[in-house]
């Protein structure tokens, strides 16, 4: 009787496990959906602080994971601020002081323009498959969408987050929610996608909220107003000279 029970339990477990797709295959599909050769976008970043909210309009140019350039268009206080990321280096140009500074060390941990994102978050490598091993653990409905819950465990030593939990839309291969954990398992940051849109074959986040859970506040909202993939970006865009133009 006991043997039969164990066999039935094992069969149920194997059947349930078999229903889950391969995690690594899943995140490869997510990477394929999310990342393109290059992209040009206009977006808004809304920082919800203690004393109200602040909206910044940003135009960004990105090529792969290692090169990006962004310019703040508004509000007037931040307009003209530019950021250049080349590999693991980041420079910021401040128009009021007409100076370019390289952000490194301690400063990378600071909040980017008062948001819940640090400069380090911006520098992080984005393609999941390069950094993580994935395992599908559960399924759940998020925003009326069927999702796989995928546990990502770092396979490289220098991953910023040891583990991540990602809710991936079963059909669109888009992460609708993400939780980032420290080595000891403490939840550090969350990302929630509130609205998505379709561009060609891709599904892309339209409105997402980043939250540093250790900090008080409602987080930072990021709204993509327009985005174009695989467009021609001149080489000069990713140069330090472009910061002062």
């Amino acid at each position, binding site marked *: 009787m006991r043997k039969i029970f164990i066999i039935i339990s094992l069969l149920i477990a194997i059947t349930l496990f078999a229903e889950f797709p391969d995690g690594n295959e899943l995140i490869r599909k997510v990477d394929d959906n999310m990342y393109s050769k290059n992209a040009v976008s206009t977006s808004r970043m809304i920082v919800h602080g203690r004393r109200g909210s602040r909206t910044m309009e940003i135009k960004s140019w990105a090529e792969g994971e290692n090169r990006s350039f962004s310019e703040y268009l508004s509000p007037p206080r931040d307009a003209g601020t530019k950021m250049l990321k080349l590999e693991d280096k980041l420079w910021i140009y401040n128009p009021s002081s007409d100076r370019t500074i390289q952000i490194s*060390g301690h400063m990378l941990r600071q909040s980017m323009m008062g948001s819940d994102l640090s400069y380090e978050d911006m520098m992080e490598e984005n393609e999941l498959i390069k950094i993580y091993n994935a395992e599908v653990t559960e399924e759940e409905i998020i925003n009326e969408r069927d999702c796989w819950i995928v546990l990502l465990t770092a396979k490289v030593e*220098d*991953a*910023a987050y*040891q583990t991540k939990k990602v809710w991936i839309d079963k059909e669109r291969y888009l992460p609708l929610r993400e939780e980032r954990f420290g*080595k000891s398992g*403490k939840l550090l940051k969350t990302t929630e996608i509130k609205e998505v849109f379709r561009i060609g074959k891709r599904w892309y986040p339209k409105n997402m909220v980043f939250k540093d859970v250790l*900090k008080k506040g409602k987080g930072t909202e990021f709204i993509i107003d327009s985005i174009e993939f695989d467009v021609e970006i001149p080489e000069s865009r990713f140069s330090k000279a472009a910061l002062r133009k």
Partner: protein
Amino acid sequence: MIFKLAMKNILGAGFRTWLNIFILSLSYFAIIALQGFYVGWQDDASREMKNWDFAGGQYWQENYDPYDPFTLEDSHAAIPKDLQKLIAEGEAIPILFSPATIYPDGRMRNIVLKGIDPNQNLIELPTKYLADHDEEIYCIIGSGFAYNLNIKEGDYIVLRWRDKNGTYDARDIKVAHIFSTTVLTVESNQIWIPLLILQEMLGHPNEATIITIKDEMYSKEFSGWQYRDLDFLLLDLTNLIQVKTVGSSVMYAILLFLAMIAIFDTQILAIFRRRKEMGTMMAMGMTRPKIIQLFTLEGVLHAVLAIFMGAIYGIPLLRHFEKVGMKFGADAKDWGLSGLDDALYPVYGWKLVVGTIILVLITTTIVSFLPTRKIAKLKPTDALRGKMTK
């Protein structure tokens, strides 16, 4: 005889003499009092800095630069074997630094996280509060920093850091003790936790950023480490006090200048009004150098009498300052100066007192002598008629 005569002359001048003496005595008092505070501050600050931070000197990992926070992440290395022996004997303590972030009351703040042996006795940091806690990480924080963060003993703070590979981690740490010190280098924007825990958190076993030693070891050199002696470690304080002293010497100069103008005026006036007296003295056989000596001595006696007058009101006042110190209305720690507590206690060494007296006496002698040069050309006949020889 000259001394008696000079004394008789200046006392005879009455109120004018006493006014000059008072002004001069104020100069003595101000110089000694202010310098005493600076000496007291330097003594206090260097003693406290040795007790709380530097001990007998420090070895710094070669990348460490306290003025460049960007160097912190790379400022760690294995502890040299010779120093490990000293550490085992309690003659040295390794300290590891790391940049980290805390979230007191949900606010983000970048800090320097420092790891130290809880059982150390070399410096006065109350590290015993860090010892023996199974699951939790206990920390100690300086009172000024704790006040800024609005945290109390027993509170928990979220600490976030990155290990040697750049991977984030975070833990709640408990504030085991809030210590009070005047040494800002151990309290400002920093949190202390046990060394072994920090080494484990960062993945830097048996490594340190600085090694504080009990006794100075000028001869020992270790590859990758630089020895910093007390002269070097206290250089900032010495320079700061030197700058302050130079700044305050402007005030001494003004006070001395006022007193010297009074002496100079008195001398000029005396030589002008006492021409007939000088003629009589010459007629009675007194030589010109003797007369110059007399008039110069009269000027110098002002400074001598000022010493006594200054002593009458100065000694009780300076003693009073020595006992109660000079109280600061605001929290002096907020001024960002090490060694300043709620009160500053002056130190008056004999060098300071004798040095000030010599300075004032020499200045007074010169100022008293200058107007008397005219006497050297004075003819007795002109003097007796009340004329100055041109």
